[in-house]
């Protein structure tokens, strides 16, 4: 475990309380741009929830564009502007400990949002367990292969996320924990978030292994699209492909029977929970929690697998996408087939 500075008093006890009536500033720090969810789901959801609960409050927002140092600067900038609470989705959960350290020094409580920050000084955790995501993907893939009677010992090609991304490391850990015990062999693997790189790699593996490939394990939707493009280009019959983020393109692809599954978090629920906790902490209240992680109160998010059959009950039901967005002319038939109206 990382060492930390001299034990400082718990932040929530010393925060100067402010009130919802007068309003105050809340900092929201999100990690990157390449996943669409942050700017299209989390941030609007967060801002809407604040608006509803505290109309006079102001949300300061910044996106770190995959750069831990930049995220730190953004956090400093928000502390300069006098935020009363920081909600941080860290690009790097280890490096973000410095953000917590600096915020706590200025008596601003910090909530880890979506990803864990490895700091005992955290006030609250609203987590999306990325190992769990990997497990979900692996599990769905294993079940699908078993259902299709693909013999154990057949191969899976893994398109993991970039090694420079800590989350990718965790996702991969979770996925392997499912795939390996099930007896499916990992034929080859690459670590990248770059579409064209993943596509070239997939093409190479198709050239190398051909029909020995029983499935593509892909860590996110971008890599899944790349794998599908490679299979299409090679004229290969599409094999099951996993994903993450439930992007619109992938949801459509799933409905069209190309991608097999993706993983989805209820961003809205996560954002609303974060706002609730943030407002409490800023006012000096101690929010109640159901769980704890490393002794810190936590609200644990449950990621869900999305397949063609569950599109209607997940992303559509939660209002992530409008039916009209998904069911463009090209996908209209698929929508009706899967009961999406």
């Amino acid at each position: 475990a990382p060492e930390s500075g001299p034990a400082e008093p718990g932040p929530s006890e010393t925060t100067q309380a402010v009130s919802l009536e007068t309003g105050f500033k809340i900092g929201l720090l999100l990690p990157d741009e390449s996943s669409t969810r942050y700017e299209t789901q989390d941030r609007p959801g967060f801002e809407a929830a604040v608006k509803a609960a505290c109309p006079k409050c102001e949300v300061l927002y910044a996106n770190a564009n995959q750069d831990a140092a930049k995220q730190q600067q953004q956090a400093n900038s928000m502390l300069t502007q006098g935020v009363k609470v920081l909600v941080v989705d860290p690009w790097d959960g280890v490096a973000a400990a410095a953000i917590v350290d600096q915020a706590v020094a200025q008596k601003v409580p910090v909530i880890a949002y979506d990803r864990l920050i490895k700091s005992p000084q955290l006030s609250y955790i609203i987590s999306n367990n990325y190992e769990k995501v990997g497990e979900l993907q692996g599990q769905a893939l294993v079940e699908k292969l078993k259902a299709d009677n693909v013999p154990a010992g057949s191969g899976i090609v893994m398109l993991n996320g970039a090694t420079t991304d800590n989350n990718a490391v965790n996702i991969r850990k979770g996925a392997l924990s499912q795939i390996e015990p099930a007896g499916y062999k990992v034929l080859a693997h690459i670590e990248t978030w770059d579409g064209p790189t993943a596509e070239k790699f997939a093409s190479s593996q198709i050239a190398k292994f051909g029909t020995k490939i029983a499935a593509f394990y892909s860590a996110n939707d971008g890599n899944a699209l790349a794998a599908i493009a490679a299979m299409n280009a090679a004229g290969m019959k599409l094999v099951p492909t996993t994903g993450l983020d439930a992007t619109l393109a992938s949801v459509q692809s799933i409905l069209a029977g190309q991608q097999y599954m993706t993983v989805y978090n209820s961003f809205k629920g996560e954002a609303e929970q974060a706002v609730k906790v943030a407002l409490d902490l800023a006012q000096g209240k101690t929010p109640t929690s159901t769980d704890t992680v490393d002794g810190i109160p936590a609200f644990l998010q449950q990621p869900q697998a999305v397949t063609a059959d569950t599109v209607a009950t997940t992303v559509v039901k939660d209002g992530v996408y409008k039916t009209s967005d998904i069911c463009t002319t090209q996908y209209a038939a698929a929508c009706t087939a899967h009961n999406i109206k």
Partner: protein
Amino acid sequence: MSLKSPIASPATQTLDRHDERLQAATGFIDELRMTGRRIRRGDIGSLPVIIGLVIIAAVFQTLNPLFLSSINLVNLMLDSAAVGTIAVGVVLVLLLAQIDLSIGSVSGFAAAILAVTFVQLGWPLWVALTLPLAMGAAVGAIYALLFLRFGVPSFVSTLGGLLAILGFQLFILGTNGSINLPFDSFIVRFAQKMFLAPVTSYVLVVVVAVVYVGFALTSAAKRRRNGLSASSVPGIWVRGILLLVGLEAAVWYLNQSRGVAVMFLFFLGVIGVVAWALRRTRWGRAMFAIGGNVEAARRAGIRVGRIYLTAFILSSVLAAAGGLMAAGRLAAATLSSGTGDVNLDAIAAAVIGGTSLFGGRGSAQSALLGILVIEAIASGLNLLNLDSSIRFMITGGVLVLAVVVDSLSRRSRAAHGTA
């Protein structure tokens, strides 16, 4: 005291071969001998990069026999086309001793425009394909304007462009993120599924060889008519036949798999057109002149501003074209289109192929050679199952080695005084 020159002038036949200090070939056998001598001296044009390529291929082939399989070569060609096309544009700006750092962003933005207009707005494909190219032209024009009117170095203006255009890409893809291109749309088929029919490909090669021989014979005849030395006629025929046989063999091998990809032919076509433009048109002459000595070019009455303008525009237009090809290959436009290694790969391809960063030296072909080196390394490593840390190390090392071969021979050329 010796007043009579001790040197007797040999009988001379052509205008350009009369200097007695010059060793020159006068027939086919002589040509062969001179070529041999040139190679031993290391004065061998782009051969060294090709040697580097051959070494890379040999090593990867021994590590995994699939490397030179026709199916993998077809993949390699398809993989090269998009970034290779962008690299051709890079060659143009490098020739002027400028740089374009925004090629990646422009290619990504082009893909985004294509996807948004074609898929989301349902505009006709030709509009959706033309619009990004027009965007590229506008971007290039802005760089040229900033450079010519305000003297902003292209490093800075295109760095600004890199960021700003990425902003536009995020902005128009904003609400949805990635957008799929339909598999049956022309652009996706072009990038994934279109191959020449075997017969067509064989005929095409014959046409190429015939055109080469015809062209070489005509110009040799014209040179002779004008009292200049020229390649020997048998030499031309031998080269033509070698070309024919070599290309037919290559095409036959590719036809064992899916065949000759139309997108790769398109890339070759771009190279051909740009190579002609650089070597045979006034515009190309002006490009080299400016790259060599911009003040001399200006004093020679060249409209320097226009040349910069065209080069920047072409660079961005080719970047946009490459972006469209990449989008077709991926069948999608995403938030990260163009943000990965596109910039570095395209610039590196031009440089590895032998185009100078300091202007005035380079060729359209360098984009082809360079991108083949880069993609061959990537493809070879893809066939080996490596950890990404090892993969990075090997890629870096091999890249440098490929260029060491080239540099060593260039060095020997310099020692012989013909650098």
